[in-house]
């Protein structure tokens, strides 16, 4: 009889102190982010405020930004200049970005005034602010990738600010190929990765209580 572990065999129980990386990761996830925290069906009653909607709407806008951006990237950077359908998808991308920033900034201010970093949530705030800052750079590379008058003028103006810091040595705003590549690959990965991290932190630690609740 073979000693190989078949798919129908009962999995071995986790051994305490196991050196398995897989077991370690599974335990970490179960401990830090159980499913009832990741996908809750009850929340504190004070979460009923409209301020909590801003973050969700920002994420919804980000999904639309990425979806419309994928279509634009698929057909290439020239497509939206010569095709009505392409221009429409560019409009979807443009307005999704505007909505994303509007609701992200509202969420940011809402969390500032709610002091969302209290009670061990500093990392959640910090990652959120970094999402905002990286998003600004992502949008900037998008404006540089438009291949129109706006992108020409932004590139010529922005080069002095970028060059003054020395970053112009490796981040050339006049190089369309570099800006386009960064805009459709690296920065979207950074933004979505950081947003995921931000959401995981929120789900792990829960929403912060109103200040007076702290003193109860």
């Amino acid at each position, binding site marked *: 009889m073979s000693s190989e572990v078949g798919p129908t065999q009962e999995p071995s129980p986790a051994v305490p102190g196991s050196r398995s990386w897989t077991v370690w990761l599974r335990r970490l996830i179960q401990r830090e982010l159980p499913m009832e*925290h990741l996908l809750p069906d009850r929340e504190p009653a004070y979460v009923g405020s409209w301020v909590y909607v801003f973050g969700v709407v920002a994420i919804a*806008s980000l999904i639309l930004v990425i979806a419309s951006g994928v279509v634009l990237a698929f057909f290439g950077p020239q497509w939206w200049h010569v095709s009505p359908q392409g221009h429409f998808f560019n*409009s979807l991308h443009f307005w999704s970005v505007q909505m994303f920033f509007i609701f992200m900034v509202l969420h940011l201010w809402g969390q500032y005034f709610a*002091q969302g970093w209290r009670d061990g949530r500093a990392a959640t705030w910090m990652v959120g602010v970094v999402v905002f800052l990286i998003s600004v750079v992502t949008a900037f590379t998008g404006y540089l990738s438009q291949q129109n008058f706006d992108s020409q003028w932004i590139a010529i103006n922005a080069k002095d600010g970028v060059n003054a*810091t020395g970053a*112009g040595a490796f981040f050339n705003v006049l190089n369309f190929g570099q800006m386009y590549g960064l805009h459709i690959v690296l920065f979207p990965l950074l933004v979505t990765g950081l947003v995921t991290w931000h959401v995981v932190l929120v789900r792990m*630690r*829960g929403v912060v209580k109103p200040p007076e609740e702290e003193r109860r």
Partner: protein
Amino acid sequence: MRRRGIDRQRYYRGVPTAPYDLIKEITVALAVMLVVVLALSAFLSSPDEPPVTIQSWAHNAPLDFLQTAGAELQGTTVSSDYGPPYNADPTRADGDLRVGLGAAVQTLGPLAPQAWAGVHQPVNAAQADVIQPLELAAVGRPALAAALRRYQLASRAQRGRWVAAYDAALQHARVHGPLVLVGRGHYGPLNVMLQGLLADARSGALDALLTQSGHFYETNYTKPLLFLGDGAYLAGLAAQQKLAGSQWGMTNETGRYPGQAWLWLYTFWYQIPPFNSASNADLMVVLLMGVLSTLLVLVPFIPGLRDLPRWLGLHRLVWREHYRFLREARPGDRP
């Protein structure tokens, strides 16, 4: 169970809860935003002002084109003496490395990151924008080839005198549509050379010549964009669209569309002293924004900044329903 400083069971003990459907909320938000974005796209579209080409520049502002081309030869444009990352002019060196590295190098006290980074996209504006395109364009055009050869064989001082004389002659030139009629002067072969360059620009050939790099494919527009930026035509169009730095620049957009409004604070500094007149404004503004961004990230750890919202009391607006409940509830109602 304690989790990274937050014991959720203990933290939320006694806090009233309510049903909550996360997936439903994100689905509804996505649907609503899709409708909003579809409506905005359908009714308002999006901006797409066609790019300026060398051809359109030469056609609409031929005098500016000739003056810029002459200035590139003279080495008096922004890009010809910019400094890193495009070029360095060792003839300017006078013991101070930062001064010797170009007119556009910005410093702040001992900080000179632009100079430290060095030249990484070498640009010789006179060669890239005028001489090399003319060398390609002169094939099969004897008069143009002879003029270019005469210019290249002349001494540096002679070339400078010709360019200066040509620039003076352009001050009195007559413009008829896309043509520039230049009066007599001691400008040697300059008129033949630069009128040849203008003719190629008008035909659209110069757009291709400026991006040719020996490769079939090209996505780097550093040289033609610097050339366009050296002229006054592009800046004039930008000012008409309210895109100049003194007009809040990048927060605006062509047409009547919203721009990068999230850059308002960055752009704000350029509108006020000392930034609006400083030669190192870019470096100062970028450093200032770096400090402010770091402060925003570190708000949870900065006394005063982290306490300000509590003092302002705006959290009572965020949780107004919650506080109303607390006010109206009798003490025994609370768990």
